[in-house]
């Protein structure tokens, strides 16, 4: 009986290890391939047909040529990296501010039409981004926001997902503590800063992480709203195949690092926050 359960356990772990390896393989492949010489990458991949001419998991000769070319010879990729930063960081900060305030209002304040407005917000949450791309394009054209990073930052700032996520966190805070603060004469802003914010810290970190990952990898919006290619973030170059194919792996590693750092910072809060949903 005991040995049967032991076998089951080994089988379960083996399956999990195999699945993990399958999911990690592309990342492992990217990191390893970033140490191949550009010649070796060209020999391995035919980017015109999208086919591997040969598949290597170990570099033939270890080389830092790709990194040298990304960091010293091709400043456009570094500039695109900073374009990504310019889009992502303001979006995350603005979304945290707007979502936390809106979540407080939707979660704890009583005002006419509160639930109906929230219902409309929920509809926005289920709409795929592609549905609103073209109407948004015309709107930005009218208000002269095309070719402007604000065309990506603004929709991100008022994202319905952030409000829904934080509202769930706010609802866990007891009404009694808010009412007690009101009785003591605290304003809504004071309640927000002293009672609400400290208690939704985990939710805020999770939202920051998810918004970061979402905006860091943004592709469709820049392609449609930006006609000036110099404003493209690195995610567009990496995905649209416009990057120099010989150094694409080193670009990928550079692009991956900030997202990994953010994940390591907020991983614990991310788990605790989702248990509340």
């Amino acid at each position: 009986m005991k040995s049967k359960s032991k076998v089951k356990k080994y089988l379960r772990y083996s399956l999990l290890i195999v699945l993990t390896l399958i999911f990690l393989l592309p990342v492992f492949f990217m990191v390893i391939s970033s140490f191949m010489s550009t010649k070796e990458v060209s020999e391995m991949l035919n980017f015109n047909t999208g086919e591997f001419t040969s598949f290597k998991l170990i570099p033939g000769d270890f080389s830092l040529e790709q990194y040298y070319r990304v960091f010293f010879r091709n400043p456009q990729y570094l500039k695109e990296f900073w374009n990504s930063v310019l889009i992502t960081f303001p979006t995350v900060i603005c979304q945290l501010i707007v979502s936390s305030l809106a979540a407080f209002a939707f979660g704890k304040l009583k005002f006419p039409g509160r639930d109906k407005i929230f219902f409309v917000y929920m509809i926005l949450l289920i709409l795929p981004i592609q549905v609103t791309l073209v109407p948004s394009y015309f709107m930005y054209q009218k208000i002269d926001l095309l070719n402007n990073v604000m065309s990506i930052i603004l929709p991100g700032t008022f994202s319905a997902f952030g409000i829904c996520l934080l509202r769930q966190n706010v609802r866990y805070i007891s009404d009694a503590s808010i009412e007690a603060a009101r009785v003591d004469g605290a304003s809504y802003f004071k309640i927000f800063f002293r009672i609400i914010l400290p208690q939704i810290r985990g939710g805020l970190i999770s939202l920051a992480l998810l918004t970061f990952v979402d905006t860091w990898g943004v592709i469709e919006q820049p392609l449609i709203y930006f006609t000036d290619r110099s404003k493209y973030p690195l995610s567009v170059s990496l995905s649209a195949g416009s990057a120099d194919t010989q150094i694409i792996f080193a670009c990928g590693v550079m692009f991956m690092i900030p997202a990994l750092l953010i994940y390591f910072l907020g991983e614990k809060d991310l788990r605790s926050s989702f248990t509340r949903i």
Partner: protein
Amino acid sequence: MENKNLRKKFQIGIVVFGVLFFMVLGGLTYISGHIDSMLYTTVTASLTSSGDLDVPDDVFPAYTLVPASALKGNTLYYVKRNSQGDYEVASMEVQIVKSDGVQTEIEKLEMNVLAICDSNKDFKLGETVLVKADIL
């Protein structure tokens, strides 16, 4: 308790690494814009064109016009892209027909090339150079 301390140390390490990462990339972004001009010879190049000196608006020109400064005797120095996407110096022998001091008429080339008119340093054949301006 020990786990908590370890986690805190890990998080501090992540923050320090993150700050250094962004600072280094910021520095590299600044430097990489200037590093090419420090490392490589900068040349001014001009695209050759089909044309005749005597018939400026000839519809079917019989010759190629190159800047006079691009020729050293009968040798035309030009830049071409190598497999890495960089410009390198190449040369070819040409048949000079006539010159007006500014442009030189040569036997027609199969295709127009970026002729080197000027450079900030001496250059060698096959050397990688930085093209400062393509005067088209």
